[in-house]
């Protein structure tokens, strides 16, 4: 029977190919759009439960005084703490966007085990005053193609260099990331270099966020409460939250766009589904005569029905499998294209399984109506049908 269904398909090669290709595109889009949502959520899921973030209660636009660090450190149960400041510079042209942070390097690798760098590079980073480390994807970006030892000049849009020129950083290492929430398109450099440079013109840099880790077994709720209470009366009130909540805030800030993407995905799928059902209906109509012949030869209704449904399933499975394959094949390219916005592009197994289930359902749904119609037809009527 499979052979018969297959023969029927290759009897109309163009239609079969086009239909399969439509299914392939529908599945591809579906996988991609779902993957964007997965990607957005990935940061939350991969967020560390042991790391807590302290930021200004106003927003990330506003800095906190450096002196907060000692005060947070003194809270009972706080293990290690580090400063992060968004540098907001650019390389040659504002369009060459990537994230740069001034960080405390001492506990960086300890607090972020997902940031992987060999020991030698770590030491080089710690001992180079204007040293920086960059992520693998940033290093591999063809616009930059930086390697260890390169000097990177950055225009400090947010923090102009006191002498009016560019900041210069030396690449000490290229890190890789083992988790979705740690971006490989980021550059990190030493806080000390950042602060000392600005001080030459009397500027006093603030801190964007503090990240700290609690001691094992410490009461996280209590610590968050204490830190928040400590600065309640200023000069800058803060909020303290687990990393996951911080990530959730970022997604929430995207507004309606993720929801819109979901809607678009659904609509896209419906549009292409209509196309597929249409083709299957046409195929069914044209095969009425063939079905008549099968019946005249002694096939029963059920067999005729099965042949047509198998045919529809076969088309959808071939197209769908190609769509899934294409998704996986395109994954690296898409990841590169959206790298400026999303650190990673995750195609979850769940997405692929969902797509596979949908393919089978689509095949059944598209095949059932024409199959039912054709199988109920009397052989003589079917034979008489010309078009």
């Amino acid at each position, binding site marked *: 029977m499979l052979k018969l269904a297959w023969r029927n398909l290759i009897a109309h090669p163009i*239609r079969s190919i086009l239909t399969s290709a439509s299914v392939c595109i529908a599945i591809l889009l579906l996988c991609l759009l779902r993957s964007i949502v997965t990607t957005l959520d990935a940061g939350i899921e991969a967020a560390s439960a042991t790391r807590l973030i302290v930021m200004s209660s106003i*927003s990330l636009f506003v800095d906190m005084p450096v002196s907060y660090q000692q005060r947070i450190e003194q809270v009972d149960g706080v293990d290690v703490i580090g400063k992060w400041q968004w540098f907001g510079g650019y390389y040659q042209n504002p369009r060459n966007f990537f994230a740069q942070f001034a960080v405390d390097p001492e506990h960086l690798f300890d607090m972020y085990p997902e940031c992987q760098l060999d020991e030698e590079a770590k030491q080089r980073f710690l001992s180079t005053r204007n040293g920086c480390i960059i992520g693998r994807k940033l290093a591999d970006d063809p616009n930059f193609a930086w390697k260890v030892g390169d000097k990177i000049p950055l225009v400090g849009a*947010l923090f102009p260099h006191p002498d009016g020129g560019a900041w210069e950083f030396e690449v000490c290492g290229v890190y890789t990331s083992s988790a979705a929430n740690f971006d490989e398109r980021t550059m990190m450099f030493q806080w000390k270099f950042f602060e000392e440079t600005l001080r030459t013109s009397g500027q006093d840099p603030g801190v964007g966020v503090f990240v700290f880790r609690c001691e094992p077994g410490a009461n996280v709720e209590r610590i968050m409460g204490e830190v928040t209470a400590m600065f309640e009366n200023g000069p800058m009130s803060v909020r303290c939250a687990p990393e996951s909540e911080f990530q959730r805030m970022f997604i929430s800030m995207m507004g309606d*766009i993720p929801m819109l993407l979901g809607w678009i995905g659904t609509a896209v799928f419906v549009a292409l589904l209509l*196309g597929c059902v249409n083709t299957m209906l046409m195929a069914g109509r044209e095969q009425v005569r063939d079905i008549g012949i099968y019946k005249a030869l002694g096939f029963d209704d059920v067999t005729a029905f099965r042949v047509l449904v198998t045919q529809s399933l076969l088309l959808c499975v071939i197209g769908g499998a190609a769509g899934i394959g294409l998704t996986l094949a395109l994954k690296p390219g898409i990841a590169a294209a959206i790298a400026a*916005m999303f650190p990673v592009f995750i195609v979850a197994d769940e997405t692929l399984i969902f797509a596979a289930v949908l393919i089978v359902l689509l095949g059944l749904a598209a095949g059932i109506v024409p199959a039912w119609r054709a199988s109920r037809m009397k052989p003589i009527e079917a034979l008489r049908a010309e078009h």
Partner: protein
Amino acid sequence: MFIPLNYTVRSLFVRKAATFLSVFGIGVTVAIFAGVLALQQGFTTMFTSQGREDVIVFLRPGATGETDSQFQRERGMKLMKSLPEIEQTPEHGPLASMESYSGVLRRRPDGGEVNVAFRGVQQATFTIRGDELRIIEGRNFTPGADEIIVGKKLVERIQDCHVGDVMVINTTPFRVVGVFDHDGPFVSEIWADLERALAVLDAYGPNRVIAKVKPGTLIGDVNAEGGPDPASLAGRLANDTEAPAKVLTERAFLESQTQMLGGILLGLGMALAVIMGVGAAFTAINTMLSAIASRTNEIGILLATGFRPLPIFVAFMLETLLLCVMGGLVGCVLVLPINGIETGTMNGQTFTEVAFAFRVTPVVVGAAIFFSVLLGMIGGLWPALRACRMTPTAALRRT
């Protein structure tokens, strides 16, 4: 010499189910394309429709927007006082104003969080804006008081945003005393007195200075190749040794703030159009091939009658075009209800949320129809070629 048009039209309507499914499928495709375009149009016009040519914006040199620009207060004062190009009025002095800009995290009604633009302004801002900005509820804030006015579009998008509510920013409670309307992006902002804003933000100075310039001032284009004309205001200030500044008209400034999100939306629209367009073209090809297969003997009789392949090609091409344009019209009808629906997202350039409405403009409708015509051209080519290349004897044999 050509096959009558009613042949084409009726051929489509005789296959009701197939035509309906195809038209609807193509319609949904076109609607998605048009919807994303309507989003982009809504976003871009919000910024570009309001930018004034007689208002200039001063930023710190090298800054790309307000978020990464900041002045010492004295430098701002110097800019405002020393430039002869700035318009003067007897009662207000120079028509120039320092403004601070920051994002403040607010709760959405559903509990999510959002970064809202928080702008501190001097009274001259209101003089410069004139009728552009209208208080539609309550009153304006009193200079020096912990009072704020909010843009109309914010009222339902964040908590504690009605007149009489209190918003705590850092440690200071601000009372909402008024709601204002504006056709540009200010309508998604919270405004307060500059001095109070700087105090709660713990900031040393404003993020930008705006000024109304005298008519006929040569402002210059900072984005020009090789820098702005040295004789222009922008050229002079770019190289000023004491108080350098980046100068651009408000229009140019607002346009520069839309590039990232506007580009992303346009890119998304194009990417979807290409991917879905392929799918929709396949649908059209399949429909037409099926139509041709069932009408082979019609083609045979047309050829036997003496019609040349060209009119037959044209007839089938027209049939596909008609199919797709009907789909395009259905798409426009489907997308029409979203016109005016409010939505909001983070503007990647400012990191604050901007609320705007979908706008189904003539540009959107035109692009949608163009898209459907393109689909028809692509989808019709092959089937029409196939139809017109049939030989009469072969076409007639298949009865």
